[in-house]
């Protein structure tokens, strides 16, 4: 750390761990600022400890419900809700991928002209800035209750996610391969199909699987605002304090997500 003459000064002194932030004034400013903020923030949170204490019993009941989930008494609702969630997930992921491919191509600076690039980046920015649940509220207001609003919401969210990552992947691709295809006299479509697509395909498959996973998780909450899926059933179960049914639904959601992660791991290992 110290060279030459500085070393003599250091000999005999005890070694101290170098601080994470080297500039002393910045370090102290950050520490004091954080401390002041935390005091103000904690002070402004009103906690009704008596209510929390009462709730602990219900919390214990809920944890116990996980040991004894009730799949049977509301099985009809659970099955319909899960099926609707799965349908929304698959349909919206497929639609989202199909739409994100052209937008992703358009949002890659190295293959798209500037006006197309700006339009596509704009679409991506809007899609990423709006949360699913807010989009779902607006779409339910416009299209009415039901899975169509959920389908549109998830497709819209998928576009922002996939197009952005696809565009970044295309921008960092190997130019040489693409140039080789162009040198054979390929048309633009052939160039994309043979020069660009094989390079980004493995990652696109991996990202699509990941998005399928996210869409399923999101589809579980869209029901809260009436956009279809298992969320409505779950909300009802919580409202009626039927913790054993709620536990059953949560176990199904966790199980499905785990299965999806396992499958996507296998598929990703295959394509890469």
């Amino acid at each position, binding site marked *: 750390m110290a060279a030459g003459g500085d070393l003599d000064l250091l000999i005999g002194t005890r070694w101290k761990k170098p601080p994470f932030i080297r500039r002393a004034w910045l370090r102290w400013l950050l520490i004091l600022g954080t401390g002041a903020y935390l005091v103000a923030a904690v002070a*402004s949170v009103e906690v009704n400890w008596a209510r929390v204490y009462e709730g602990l019993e219900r919390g214990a009941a809920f944890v116990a419900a996980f040991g004894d989930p009730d799949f049977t008494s509301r099985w009809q609702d659970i099955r319909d809700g899960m099926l609707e969630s799965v349908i929304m997930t698959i349909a919206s992921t497929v639609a989202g991928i199909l739409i994100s491919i052209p937008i992703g191509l358009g949002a890659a600076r190295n293959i798209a002209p500037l006006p197309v690039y700006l339009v596509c980046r704009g679409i991506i920015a809007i899609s990423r800035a709006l949360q699913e649940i807010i989009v779902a509220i607006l779409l339910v207001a416009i299209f009415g209750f039901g899975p169509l609003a959920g389908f549109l919401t998830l497709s819209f969210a998928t576009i922002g996610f996939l197009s952005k990552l696809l565009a970044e992947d295309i921008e960092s691709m190997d130019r040489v391969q693409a140039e080789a295809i162009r040198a054979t006299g390929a048309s633009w479509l052939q160039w994309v199909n043979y020069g660009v697509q094989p390079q980004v395909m493995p990652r696109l498959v991996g990202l699509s699987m990941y998005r399928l996973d996210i869409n399923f998780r999101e589809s579980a909450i869209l029901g809260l605002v009436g956009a279809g899926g298992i969320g409505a059933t779950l909300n009802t179960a919580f409202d009626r304090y039927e913790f054993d049914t709620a536990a059953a639904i949560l176990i199904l959601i966790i199980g499905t997500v785990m299965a999806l992660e396992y499958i996507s791991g296998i598929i990703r290992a295959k394509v890469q």
Partner: protein
Amino acid sequence: MAIISLPDGHRTWRRFTPRAQILRWFGYLIGVAVFVWCWNRISEATTWFFVWDAPRIAGDILTRATPPRWSYMEKLWWPIWDTINIATLGTIAALVMAVPVAFMAARNTTPQISVSPVVIRMIPPFLRPVLMTSTGQDSYTIGPIRPIALLIIVSTRSINSLIWALLLIAIIGPGVFAGIVAIAIRSIGFCAKLLYEAIEEIDHGQVEAVTATGGSRWQVMAYGIVPQIMPAFAGIAVFRWDINIRESTVLGLVGAGGIGLQLSSSLNVLAWPQVSLILLVILLAVVISEWVSAKVRGAII
């Protein structure tokens, strides 16, 4: 890649062999069939009359929502403060809980025992990647706590914060506190997963150097491992904070405090000018938090 002979005797290049081509088309066929089936189910559950009417409704809502009711802003400052607190305090609580989980989940820091190959053969193959922490020539180690840590990670991650909020409101009642706890629990899995991957990628030489000086287990951790994962930790914290700002803006929809509460009550009375103002505020908050997080991560990494 294949060279195939055409019926007229010429040989030509194709990207896929005929067999692969047929398999691919078959795959696409199944994909299309599944999609069409899903679409039919969605279409059955839809009232198409409303959908055809949608452009008029959308136009109607847009005219009602503009201009935003700017004077409503004075009632939003306190919810905005609450929203920021939910995200920040939730992130801090999540990090505190995520650190031990991450150390238990990382293959190189989880408590482990060495076992003989006989024991390994008794573990079902699909459990081996979860349980086993290292394989040598004839020495194997398994981490008995690792599956529990991984289960915590996957279960907290796979349930949305709105669902956690619903659950916590049923248990401890509505309010900001439920929101903080919901955000905290939801973020454990995310933070612990990224953190344990960072721990697994550390340079082993530094750990060995501290061990060689006679450092205890905790000293090895504090001087050999922690400095190496500190940048990753700071990056994860800011990244998750950014996501949590987004999520905490909507937690109020189910009653867990923050600006979503105002959004929900404005929606209930169809006060569209207030809704549009709140949506603008949320959009601004999301953009600012993303900008802050990008700046801070840029400075760290």
